[in-house]
């Protein structure tokens, strides 16, 4: 049972938009009988955003700690204000998504003889996260190199 200063239900128009582009390029070449080269790249751009959300009933109901006129910043400089329902009107700013990811793979293989071959692959991944969400900034870059020896029979 809740009889505190909880005060009801409110609704607003909203719209949400998601957009993504993915580009891919690939090439496989055999310049000599024993050599094979390959290159692949993909680039993805993704965005998601909430349109303006405005609860008109909240503006006149600032019943939270602001009304106390209590300067809480003296206690915690990072928390100038406390919980306030007015902030619900700013939800459109909290959940935007905007990222770009680039993946590149380069490979080369060489057949030493009919049975034995060697190869090397290079992998590059870069994720650029422009809008942090609740799990923090996911931006990261990875590079790795793989070498191998193969035996065919």
């Amino acid at each position, binding site marked *: *049972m809740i009889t505190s200063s909880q*005060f*009801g239900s409110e609704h607003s128009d909203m719209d949400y938009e998601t957009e993504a582009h993915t580009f891919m390029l690939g090439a496989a070449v055999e310049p000599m009988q024993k050599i094979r080269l390959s290159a692949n790249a993909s680039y993805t751009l993704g965005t998601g955003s909430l349109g303006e959300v405005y609860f008109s009933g909240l503006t006149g109901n600032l019943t*939270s700690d602001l009304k106390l006129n209590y300067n809480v910043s003296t206690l915690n400089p990072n928390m100038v204000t406390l919980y306030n329902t007015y902030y619900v009107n700013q939800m459109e700013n909290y959940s935007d998504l905007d990222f770009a990811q680039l993946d590149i793979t380069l490979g080369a293989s060489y057949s030493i003889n009919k049975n034995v071959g060697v190869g090397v692959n290079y992998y590059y991944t870069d994720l650029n*996260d422009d809008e942090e969400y609740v*799990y923090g900034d996911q931006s990261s870059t*990875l590079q790795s190199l*793989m070498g191998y020896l193969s035996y065919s029979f």
Partner: protein
Amino acid sequence: MKRYLTTMVTGFALSVAICSLAISADEQKALEGELKVGGTWMLEDLDEPSITDEALRDKTSASSFSVGKAPGAKGAAEYMDIADKESSVFTGADLNFRNKNFDFDFSGRYESSRDQDYYLKGAASRIFLFETDYSIFKHRLDHDYMENLNAHIFRAGPSTAANNGDPVGLPFAPGSAGAANNAAFYTAFPDKDPNTAGYQNGMSTLGAANVYNTDWDVAGRYYANRSEWNNNMKVNIPALPGLKFAFDHRQERRSGCKQAQTMSKCSACHIESYSKSINETTNDYIPKVSFQAEALNVEYSFLHRDFEDSSQEMMNGYNSMAEAHVPGFSPLLQFPAYSNNTLVSGSEVLPFSRTPDSTKDSHNMRLRYDIDAHNTITGGMVYSKTTNTQTDGGVAGLFSNQLVGLYGDDLELESTALMAKWNSRLTKVLNLTVHGKYQTLNNDNVAIDVNDGRTLGKYTNEPYSTLDFTRTSGYDLDILSAGFDLAWRAMHGMTVSGGYEFHQEDRQNYEHHDVPETTQEHTFKLKGDWRVNKKVNLGLGYKLQLTDDPYALYGAICPPDAGFATYAGPATAGTDYNRTYEPNIYAARQATRSNQAETAHEFTLKGSFTPMQMLTSNLYGKYRYAENSDLGGSDWTQDLFTAGLNVVATPSQKVTLTAGYNYFYDTYESMYCVAIYDG
């Protein structure tokens, strides 16, 4: 893990041994393949945290971030196990063996204990066929640092009566529940005692409303190892060519560690998170038998699925009852429970973050009969029962069966489906298919027996009505669908097809859930495929969906002309029911909202263009517009567009070039309804 590897390696070794004998006896080149060994070196890894230590120290919270925070940036390596290692060794193999009695194909790759895949397929004289595959990968999971849940300021100093002169009430100060209550709780859970040195700033907050969090493992790095093992075995009996037996098995396992969250009840919101081990196993066992006699083909299969969750059983001791700033507030439903100023034994901790074990049994019968060369009928029946086997388990202590029990009964969902289809080649250019399906779903009701505050000492005389209720299920419904498809080959290279389908859902418990009783959907389809010439193919399609009473929630929002349900103000007496949650939140919502369409149009396009032998391209696109105007407030609309273009060029046998582009766009307009709180 060792079990899977042992099985795979043993199977492979046996196969190789058999093949070796066969090779020596028969052909020298029966076995072909490739073996590969190598290593991977990380040039740039994940070990740099995305949030600096300085940022962590700036965080002033009770959940003191004095220890390092786990790296948050997993984005580029979400499914890459070796991303935080310097190097690793991998091995791989592809083997094929053929002779007149045996054959098998094997491929395998080992990168790390959490990144492997294997495949083996074998046959003996076409009588016994066996196929198995196993794969495992690591999925890095998110760690929510709950930084958005910090609308609070922890009060300096211990929670003593002397501090009650602060500007607002102190939710966790010893209040009307009595100091003895808090003492008992804090004895059981000293970590949550604000009067201890480590948590003096941790339990009392300033402000009428507050939201705060405690992350009990800020350095936790979460992941799930997911593995899947499939086995298929078939036996053909030479003496009975129409009779076949088969047995399928599938095992899925998830293991690792994840974040489990829980929150206190009512008044102040205290969100707590812990690290929890994951150990889940799903096994499917599917025996099958099929029989074919001339025009008749019958197949029966049985599925038994067993899901077992052996993950860590999480329990949490919740904060003492919160005392809000409004006089007379008595949060009776806050755990733990007190009776006569004494913490009730068994109520100290409560379970959270659990997935119940379950089983599923399904009988599947299919029948096909070729009436003649132009007409075929198929029919089928599926009966399944899914059981939650832990509803009668309970948790030791005061709230055992009241929390999770059905008093000895399992929670069951039954489904029966019947389907039939008739396909007829009416003429050389006209093909007709008529189909229908009926399904009925029955899910158990759950009786909720709430142990409300009236049984607890000081609240015995409170006048609240009983909170017990019966939860009826949304899965009590009947589904009927029927329709036809007609395909007409108008000319050589051109086919036009169209169809209609009727779909109806009848919901048994619609009154309880405040949703439509019946939804009827009519779908019209039209499609054309045209091979223009040897170089160009085109396909166009259109689908129209018209729905009467799409699924909706009737009491979803306040009426548009009264878009805001006002606050009734603090209760003036304990009997003032009009100022409780229900009239201000739920009863105020009387208008309908839905995210299902009344009308939907969908256009599709596909095409391919091969101007020369060395160049091929294909194009696709889809546009969908859907809307629902039978709602309170503004209309619901959706625009969705996807398109793509792929090109492959092979200028010579030694050069291959590819290029592609995909586009996705989706937007919808709706209304958003929230409950507004201020305390």
